[in-house]
């Protein structure tokens, strides 16, 4: 047993054959390993998200985060890519699904892959995780405070996201939802509406709303970080993936 890992930038084929930059990390041990696609938050493909990818590798998963804003140009810094993508209304849903499918295919093609794929996303990536789980055949999904699954963004918002709750019947896998009680996007009321809809549809899900936490409580490099919620949240994530992504 070794805890050594490989990590670095790779290229994956995304929606409509686009070449995407991605950050991957995987254990060097012989496996088998489950795969985790990490969907970055709205501020983009940043250092903290790459750290999350390495955390999954340290726990025995092959993980990858595609840069969803790769199309804003190679050599452009991630914050400028994020600003440009935000100004365009965010990433189109169809493109997101194609990009996640490409990242999952990369993981499935790795030596020692066990064929199981989990998806986890933060902020806008939480909503996109739900979208991916309703659009692709995957094995487990974790939505970390994804807004606009139940309600549309405010009219003044540049984001062109549509609510996804009507797609809930297509959810292909168990869903873990981790939310903050002080968040407004999504509010605890919206989380409750989604949970009730999934109950009604008989879709396996487990939602946790953490007290004293708002949007972005997993973000270690931001004042929104809430250690109590994040530590407990990570335990839930690894317990959930442990149950659903084992060989």
């Amino acid at each position, binding site marked *: 047993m070794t805890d050594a890992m490989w990590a670095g930038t790779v290229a994956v084929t995304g929606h409509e054959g686009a070449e995407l930059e991605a950050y991957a990390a995987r254990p060097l041990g012989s496996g088998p390993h489950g795969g985790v696609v990490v969907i970055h938050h709205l*501020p983009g493909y940043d250092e903290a998200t790459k750290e999350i990818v390495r955390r999954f590798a340290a726990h025995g998963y092959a993980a990858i985060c595609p840069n969803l804003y790769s199309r804003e*140009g190679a050599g452009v*810094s991630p*914050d400028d890519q*994020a600003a440009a993508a935000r100004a365009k209304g965010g990433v189109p849903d169809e493109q997101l699904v194609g990009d996640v499918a490409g990242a999952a295919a990369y993981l499935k093609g790795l030596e020692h892959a066990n064929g199981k794929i989990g998806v986890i996303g933060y902020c806008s990536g939480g909503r996109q995780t739900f979208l991916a789980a309703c659009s692709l055949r995957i094995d487990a999904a974790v939505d970390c405070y994804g807004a606009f699954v139940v309600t549309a963004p*405010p009219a*003044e918002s*540049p984001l062109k996201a549509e609510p996804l709750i009507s797609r809930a019947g297509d959810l292909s896998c168990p869903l873990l939802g981790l939310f903050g009680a002080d968040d407004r996007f999504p509010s605890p009321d919206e989380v409750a509406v989604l949970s009730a809809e999934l109950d009604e549809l008989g879709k396996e899900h487990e939602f946790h709303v953490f007290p004293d936490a708002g*949007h972005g409580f997993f973000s270690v490099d931001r004042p929104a970080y809430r250690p109590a919620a994040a530590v407990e949240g990570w335990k839930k994530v690894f317990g959930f993936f442990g149950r659903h992504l084992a060989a």
Partner: protein
Amino acid sequence: MCTYLTEKIRIDGAAKGASGWFTVTDGMVYVDHPYHACQEHTVNIDLTNPAEGPSARVAIELTEEAALALVEAIHKALAAAPPGLASGTRRSLPA
């Protein structure tokens, strides 16, 4: 929380970004999580030229107090100058 409200304006001027000076054509102002400032929320201002690509951007993240102080300073500076001195319409006038 984020308000998700974004004010977009047309801008006429120039700014110095990571790769030097460029002409700015667009501006965005929004209250949201900052990228760099150590605050939960800031007033974020982007001055950009989309035609020159995403790197043609100057990004500013200010506290509410700083943003309001900047607005006041701009008004004071303009009030102290003869009306129209810095107007975009002057560029076509003879020197």
